[in-house]
């Protein structure tokens, strides 16, 4: 009811009240009047009725005027003020007008002051937020520039080894933009596709044992590049620095350097040095012996003298040629080293003991350990070598117990792998040194000899007849001096300032895939172009395009696109659709070559396609021939559209894109369609959530219920 309505109602009520009062007075005055009295009153009323009604009417009019004045003075200004206050919520610049009574005006002034204050606060907060955002953007830009300009590759992972960040250089190191490289390095992918899980595990264990710092290891890429990798744990944000206990880690960073060239040049330099020293020793030895003999035995016969002079001439010439050759090939060489690290010998033994016990299931005990002995070695490769020997001893000679011993021998350290009871021929064991190591299915191109040489040591097999036992002795360079390099991150007392993305949160990986939330899964959205629509009648895939979605982000730069030679004719009708001519397909790989790579690209993701049944049918039909099985769960945007918009006539990709406000560019290239499909899919996620479809299992169940799910190819 408006204020006017209220006014009318108030007037009516007031007049009615007045009438009621007059009637009540008349009743009280008239009650109990008898006979003559009553006649007098009646006569009086009859005569004065007109005047009485007049008085009553005047009273009513007066009431109306009074009420109207009060309404104008009190109620109306209040209603206006209320409206103005509502407007003020939306428009902070609006103020209440000063109307009505003095009390009301005082209230309006107070409200206006509150509004002023609020406006000032808002402005202040906005300024601060803007400054903070600007600072954050600047940090982020600086960080991005730093990352992209770094000469080293950087990959950051969470503790599960999922890649959270990588830079351009890292991507270039891992096969650039090739399909294999894409399959190996990407956000959300496992870093263990790039590096041996044990290498990283070993590095992290070692860092933990030392209470911080970083560690290097060497790895080789598929393409044969030799990489030097630094691993450093990333302390958990908000961790209490004062807590002297173990700092908790939220992930780790790897910095990668390509040392192929420097290593090659170092090998070349080593070779040169060896040429100049070791292989000169023989000729110099012969020369010296001959010269000294000539000098010391002047009484020799002329014929003997001639023989010795010939030796001198021959050997001098050989040495001259060798020096000449060395000088020629002594090109400028870069200084680089194998990552030999100082480590406490006892640490290496403890690690070896655990590793051998785990790998070979042989009990290992420590015998005599020089606790103060530091080594300068590549610990990981040495562990590999020891485990390899242990495994062969166990497998081939049934050795059931091993002992480890570490003693000092001058500048060298003796690391012994000891067993008792069984002796084998020296020749057998010498061959172990030269076989490529094979450790429970993992074959290394290196031999134990390679490893020992890399570590600047020697290895041999020795018997201890008295104690009825035998051992392998690794003679390794000891390291004198202070042990260990300074920890890099151990003393970091605040989180790194340049980096604050929400990347390290734990995923609910314990849940079964079906129960995981759609928003948290990683997807490969793909599309194929084909020679026709009938896969079971010989139509073939001629192009696959795919993009990835990780953490609800479409990763356009991690796209995959591949043309495929269908090894059959190309119908003209299909060329009109996809515009791919036979000339473009000549020389492209076959489906059998492509599918294993594509399979690696989609690893650990959920597949998404528009009308997926069609694309999946093509892939299924190739399963027998290629042996490549696509068994990841599949979502279909066609069916999801039917779930979301059951009353629409069409669920074509263009129609859905238009409905969801996705612009369509580059249709009918496989990657173009994959991108549109991915964008559509991302728009669908919140709509599905509104319908209570949140998990993968729910989405699949809802899809299957739609009518369209019955289409078969």
């Amino acid at each position, binding site marked *: 009811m408006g204020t006017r309505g209220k006014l009318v109602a108030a007037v009516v009520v007031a007049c009615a009240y007045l009438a009621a009062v007059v009637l009540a007075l008349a009743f009280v005055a008239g009650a109990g009047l008898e006979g003559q009295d009553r006649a007098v009153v009646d006569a009086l009323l009859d005569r004065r009725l007109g005047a009485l009604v007049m008085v009553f009417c005047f009273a009513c009019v007066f009431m109306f005027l009074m009420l109207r004045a009060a309404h104008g003075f009190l109620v109306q200004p209040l209603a206006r003020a209320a409206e103005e206050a509502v407007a003020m919520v939306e428009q902070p610049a609006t103020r209440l007008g000063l109307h009505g009574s003095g009390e009301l005006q005082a209230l309006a002034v107070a409200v206006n002051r509150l509004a002023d204050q609020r406006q000032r606060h808002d402005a202040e907060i906005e300024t601060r937020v803007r400054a903070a955002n600007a600072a954050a953007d600047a940090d982020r830009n600086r960080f991005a520039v730093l990352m992209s300009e770094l000469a080293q590759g950087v990959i950051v992972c969470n503790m599960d080894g999922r890649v959270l960040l990588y830079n351009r250089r890292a991507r270039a190191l891992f096969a650039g933009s090739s399909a294999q490289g894409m399959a190996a390095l990407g956000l959300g992918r496992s870093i263990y596709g790039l590096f041996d899980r044990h290498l990283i595990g070993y590095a992290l264990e070692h860092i933990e044992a030392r209470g911080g710092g970083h560690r290097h290891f060497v790895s080789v890429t598929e393409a044969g590049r030799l990489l030097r990798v630094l691993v450093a744990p990333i302390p958990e944000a908000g961790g209490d620095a004062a807590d002297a206990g173990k700092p908790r880690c939220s992930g780790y960073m790897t910095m990668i350097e390509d040392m192929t060239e420097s290593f090659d040049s170092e090998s070349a330099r080593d070779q040169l040095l060896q040429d100049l020293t070791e292989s000169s020793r023989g000729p110099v030895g012969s020369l010296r012996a*001959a010269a000294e003999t000539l000098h010391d035995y002047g009484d020799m016969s002329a014929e003997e003298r001639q023989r010795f002079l010939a030796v001198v001439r021959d050997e001098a010439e050989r040495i001259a040629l060798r020096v000449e050759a060395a000088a020629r090939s002594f090109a400028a060489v870069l200084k680089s080293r194998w990552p030999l690290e100082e480590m406490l010998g006892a640490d290496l033994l403890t690690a070896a003991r655990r590793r051998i016990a785990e790998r070979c299931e042989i009990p290992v005990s420590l015998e005599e350990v020089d606790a103060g002995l530091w080594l300068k070695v590549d610990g990981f490769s040495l562990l590999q070598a020891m485990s390899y020997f242990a495994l062969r001893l166990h497998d081939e000679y049934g050795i059931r117990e091993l002992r480890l011993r570490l003693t000092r021998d001058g500048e060298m350290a003796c690391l012994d792998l000891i067993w008792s009871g069984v002796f084998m021929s020296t020749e057998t064991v010498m061959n172990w040194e030269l076989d490529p190591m094979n450790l429970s299915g993992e074959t290394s191109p290196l031999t134990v000899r390679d490893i020992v040489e890399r570590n600047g040591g*020697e290895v041999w097999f020795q018997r201890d007849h008295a104690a009825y036992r035998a051992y392998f002795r690794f003679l390794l360079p000891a390291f004198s001096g202070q042990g260990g390099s300074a920890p890099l991150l151990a003393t970091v007392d605040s989180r790194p300032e340049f980096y604050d993305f929400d990347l390290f949160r734990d995923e609910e990986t314990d849940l079964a895939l079906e129960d995981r939330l759609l928003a948290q899964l990683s997807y490969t959205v793909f599309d194929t172009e084909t020679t026709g629509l009938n896969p079971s009648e010989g139509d073939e895939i001629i192009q696959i395009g795919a993009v990835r979605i990780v953490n609800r982000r479409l990763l356009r730069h991690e796209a995959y696109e591949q043309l495929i030679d269908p090894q059959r004719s190309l119908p003209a009708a299909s060329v009109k659709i996809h515009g791919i001519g036979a000339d473009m397909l000549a020389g492209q790989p076959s489906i059998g070559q492509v599918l294993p790579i594509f399979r690696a690209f989609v690893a650990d993701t959920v597949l998404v396609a528009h009308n997926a049944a069609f694309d999946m049918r093509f892939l299924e039909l190739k399963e027998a021939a290629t042996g490549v099985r696509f068994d990841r769960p599949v979502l279909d945007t066609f069916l999801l559209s039917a779930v979301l918009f059951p009353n629409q006539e069409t669920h074509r990709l263009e129609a859905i894109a238009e409905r969801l406000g996705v612009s369509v560019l580059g249709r009918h290239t496989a990657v173009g369609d994959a991108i549109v499909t991915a964008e559509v899919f991302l728009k669908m996620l919140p709509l599905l959530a509104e319908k209570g479809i949140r998990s993968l299992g729910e989405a699949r169940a809802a899809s299957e219920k739609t009518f369209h799910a019955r289409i078969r190819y």
Partner: protein
Amino acid sequence: MATKILIADDEPNIVISLEFLLKREGYEVVVAHDGVQALAQVRAERPDLAILDVMMPNRNGFEVCQDLRQDPEFKTMRIMMLTAKGRDTEVSKGLALGADVYMTKPFATRDLLAKVKALLERA
């Protein structure tokens, strides 16, 4: 009976000098040109001292040395190793495998003769 010494080296130019020197010192000298030949010569000629080069074809000096030391018959035979590799680790390996003396090329002929003499005079 003259003291017999085996020289096992595949490098003829050093053999010339060693053979001449040792003969002049009054030793009887037997020569082998690789590892297999050296083992055969030791068994056939039973020398008092074997001078083994490390880098030899077929079987290297380390292997010959280790084989000989496993045979109780040659447990006490003197063995001197000559090598063109001078690394400490190799010296240690040679001595660990049973060589009595380890000499690195190039060596002084006088030193060599003195070492041979000392070895043979040792009881």
